[in-house]
């Protein structure tokens, strides 16, 4: 009894420690986003956990309404980068999920594509930089630099292996008999795929898509290299939030970070039911 109590204490202490490590920066960011300039510029003893005078000035600032206290004017507002991130990450996810699901299905069901799984991974074998320089040259040649679709295309390519491998595991786990049953009843392969397989894979599709989207959404390096001005994404734009007069604009960064956290969280909540339900198929596992 005693041993299990001390074990419980240890367990909860460990959980709290890890929670603190992972959540404190997030809490700090949220707090910072609502602090007026004087508070986030403060250092040492003047720093407070919560804003003393909560304000939306940081949000107003990044959307172009210059706050009274910040003399710097922004060259660009946050609206465009948010749009760029949304477009590039969403379409990149579509590309990766579309191609990845199709490839995974073909390989899982028919064994087409022999070495494809390993070939797909080799993109990830190199340091990203080593891959990105040639990509930059190709994209420049194709005129895809600083376009949202150029960025979406490379996002789709880079996250394809993840989409493929995740979906392949899910397809492998789905009993073939379910498709065979539909085929025996007189359905075409296509109809079976669209009406039986995909609906049953909805939880798998949702969780894979969320994973891929978050990868795309949080990319910095690729966007830094492939966008210059019109279509910089949130992470790249965030890095530019500084000035020689004020240094890093931490309040503005925190506000932008908070905005950037919204889409993945909304998506996560929207598909939560699918995520926790996991994959239960209409067949018994042997």
């Amino acid at each position, binding site marked *: 009894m005693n041993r299990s109590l001390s074990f419980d204490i240890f367990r909860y202490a460990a959980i709290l420690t890890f929670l603190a490590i992972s959540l404190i920066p997030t809490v700090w960011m949220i707090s910072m986003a609502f602090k007026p300039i004087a508070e986030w510029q403060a250092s040492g003893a003047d720093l407070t956990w919560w804003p003393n005078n909560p304000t939306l000035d940081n949000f107003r600032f990044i959307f172009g309404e210059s706050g009274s206290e910040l003399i710097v004017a922004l060259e660009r507002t946050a609206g465009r980068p948010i749009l760029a991130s949304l477009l590039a990450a969403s379409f990149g996810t579509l590309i990766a999920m579309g191609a990845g699901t199709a490839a995974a299905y073909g390989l899982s069901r028919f064994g087409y594509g022999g070495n494809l799984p390993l070939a797909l991974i080799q993109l990830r074998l190199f340091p990203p930089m080593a891959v990105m320089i040639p990509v930059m040259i190709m994209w420049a040649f194709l005129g895809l630099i600083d376009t949202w679709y150029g960025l979406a295309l490379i996002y789709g390519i880079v996250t394809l292996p993840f989409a493929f491998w995740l979906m392949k595991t899910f397809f492998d786990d789905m*009993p073939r*008999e*379910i498709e*065979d*049953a*539909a*085929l*025996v*009843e*007189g*359905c*075409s392969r296509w*109809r079976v795929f669209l009406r*039986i397989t995909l*609906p*049953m894979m*909805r939880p798998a599709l949702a969780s894979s898509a969320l994973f891929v989207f978050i990868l795309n959404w949080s990319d910095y390096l690729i966007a830094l290299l492939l966008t210059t001005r019109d279509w910089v994404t949130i992470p790249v734009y965030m890095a530019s939030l500084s000035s020689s007069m004020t240094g890093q604009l931490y309040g503005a960064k925190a506000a932008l970070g908070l905005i950037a956290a919204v889409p993945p969280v909304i998506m996560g909540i929207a598909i939560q039911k699918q995520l926790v339900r996991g994959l*239960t*198929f*209409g*067949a*018994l*596992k*042997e």
Partner: protein
Amino acid sequence: MTRITLENLGRDFGEFTALANMDLTIADGEFVALLGPSGCGKSTTMNMIAGMLEPSHGEIRFDGRNMNGVPMAKRGVGFVFQNYAIFTHMSVRDNLAYGLKAQGVGRAEIARRVGEIAELLQLSPLLDRRAAGLSVNILQRLAIGRSAVVEPSIFLMDEPLSNVDAAFRAVMRSELKGLQRQFKQTMVYVTHDQLEAMTMADRIAVMDHGKLLQVGTPLEVYNHPADTFVARFIGAPGMNLLPGRVTGGDGAPVIDLGAAGHSGALRLEQTGDILFGFRPEEVVPDANGPLAMQVTAAERIGPRIILHLAAGDHRAKVVLDGETPAPQQGETFRFSVPERSVRLFDAQTERAL
């Protein structure tokens, strides 16, 4: 409503031969059980009949029409899978209606037929439930209903009862047989459970290691096993097989069973080594009997007693009804085997003599 002919049918997977040269004709409306241990080729055979698997050689004919290369959707077979393969994202009603929709049957007709089959299988109250949360027993009925509703001329079932609990299995055994009589379909039923095969099938095809060993009615297979595998596999416990040697020659041959004694007076042309077979149920306790073995264990199972016997290297099991005074462990059990119950097998080929 279709006659199935398998001719010289075989399937290899690389080096492995899953099924070698099977010949079998299944009559119109007949219920045939493919019986054998796992890996014997019974499911392979079934999958080829369904069209899920192409034969490596040989032919499958439905009513004389060669089905090789015909896609499974066009074969008009119903298939019930071992794991049921229910579409969990749909309601019970949509599951039942699926095959009819795929065939382009009209909406009113679908509703009528789904209603009928649901009534028959006692699924009516569950029609609007999502299939995901249903119990195994109900999934099993749903799987049968989904296949039956399209009224296939051939019904294929792959161990449909292996996942349901024992009590429900007994109920389903009689129900399945009843359904098949009602629909008059040709039924091929794969199972490793001899009880299912014995109780439901018109004929049993016993298979092992990719070979068809014997086809016959349940009684034929039980009474006249074609070889020692069938003899051991059918029956619970299976047939006893004691190695022996025919001596005595002309006129009055005697089978020397070594430590167990000897048995004589059989019409017999064979000489040399044989296997002496008899059913555990057909032994007669006999204080003056020619055979004697030591009792190593006695199990009482309900009204029956199973004696485990040993004599030298010979092992045998005997089933006595509860009325018979049973010998205790360590005692000697003397018995005889009526001549009509004796089955002899060639010691080398293991085929029946």
